[in-house]
């Protein structure tokens, strides 16, 4: 087997692995398994990036995509629970398949009409492109990371007022009344959880 054929075979295997793992991540019943498949997609994409010569991007993709995001997903699953109950799509599946195929065909048609031969001229390396031509992107990345951290602190922090209300218990004769503040979805969390469990039991019996 000559070198271009072997190279094409490696690309083909990596692309197929990425697509298959992505499909499994979408269809898997457990979210934890979906997370593992997502890490596999990230690893396959990182290997393709490395073979394409994008070494720095491959390292970032592998460390962030397969590492950080997987850890964050596992943490979220440990808090939320591995509940992948997905009550059917809003739109019919044949319509979704048709729309997806239409999008892929249109994008493929446009992408294959692009020039595939490298243009002649000086090619700027990544360092020069990132720190001189796209320096605004670097600043935007810093702002994004900073705002992301602030957003996480704001989202994961318990509100002082609601926390005080949740923690307040009043003695009403023999009973202890616990005040539960109204939620954004208009549901009492305990009632909502009980409703979810009831639906799950109905599904099992059906």
């Amino acid at each position, binding site marked *: 087997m000559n070198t271009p054929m072997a190279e*094409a075979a490696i*690309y*083909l295997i990596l*692309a197929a692995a*990425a697509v298959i793992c992505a*499909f499994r*991540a*979408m269809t898997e019943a457990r*979210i934890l398994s979906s997370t593992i498949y*997502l890490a596999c*997609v990230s690893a396959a*994409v990182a290997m*393709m*990036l490395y073979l*394409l*010569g*994008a070494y720095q*991007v491959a390292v*970032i993709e592998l460390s*962030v*995509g397969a590492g950080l*995001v997987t850890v*964050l*997903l596992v*943490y*979220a*699953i440990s808090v*939320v629970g591995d509940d992948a109950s*997905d*009550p*059917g*799509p809003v*739109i019919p599946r044949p319509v*979704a*398949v048709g729309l997806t*195929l239409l*999008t*892929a065909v249109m*994008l493929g048609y446009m*992408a294959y009409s692009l020039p595939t031969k*490298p*243009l*002649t001229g000086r090619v*700027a390396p*990544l360092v*020069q492109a*990132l720190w001189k*031509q796209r320096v605004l*992107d670097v600043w935007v990345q810093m702002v994004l*990371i900073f705002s*992301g951290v602030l*957003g*996480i602190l704001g*989202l994961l922090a318990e509100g002082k007022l609601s926390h005080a209300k949740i923690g307040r218990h009043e003695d009403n004769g023999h009973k202890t009344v616990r005040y539960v503040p109204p*939620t*954004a979805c208009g*549901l009492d*969390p305990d009632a909502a*959880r009980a409703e*979810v469990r009831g639906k799950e039991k109905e599904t099992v019996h059906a």
Partner: protein
Amino acid sequence: MTPLQIGLLGVLGLLGVGCYGLLVTRNLIKVVIILQILVKSAVLALVLAGEAAGQAGLGQSLAATVIVADTMVAVVGLALAVQVRRRCGSVDLSAISTLRG
């Protein structure tokens, strides 16, 4: 087939899976996972386009920016999912929506 064409096929496959998943999935955490798949196809497409156009550095720098932005989207989306689960007891997008029409 050249590596660029094979990579483009992979991009289209990932994009198709992501689009279909976004249309049929209502679980908030799974939506975050599917968004990750979509962005991986975008990163690969940027690097491939940079290679094809002879501006590899530009494509790679844009891909790095997209990876950072995507990570922030995942972080905020997961934090949102945790809060929604705590307050509503569910991560079903249709259950937590207050819009009825």
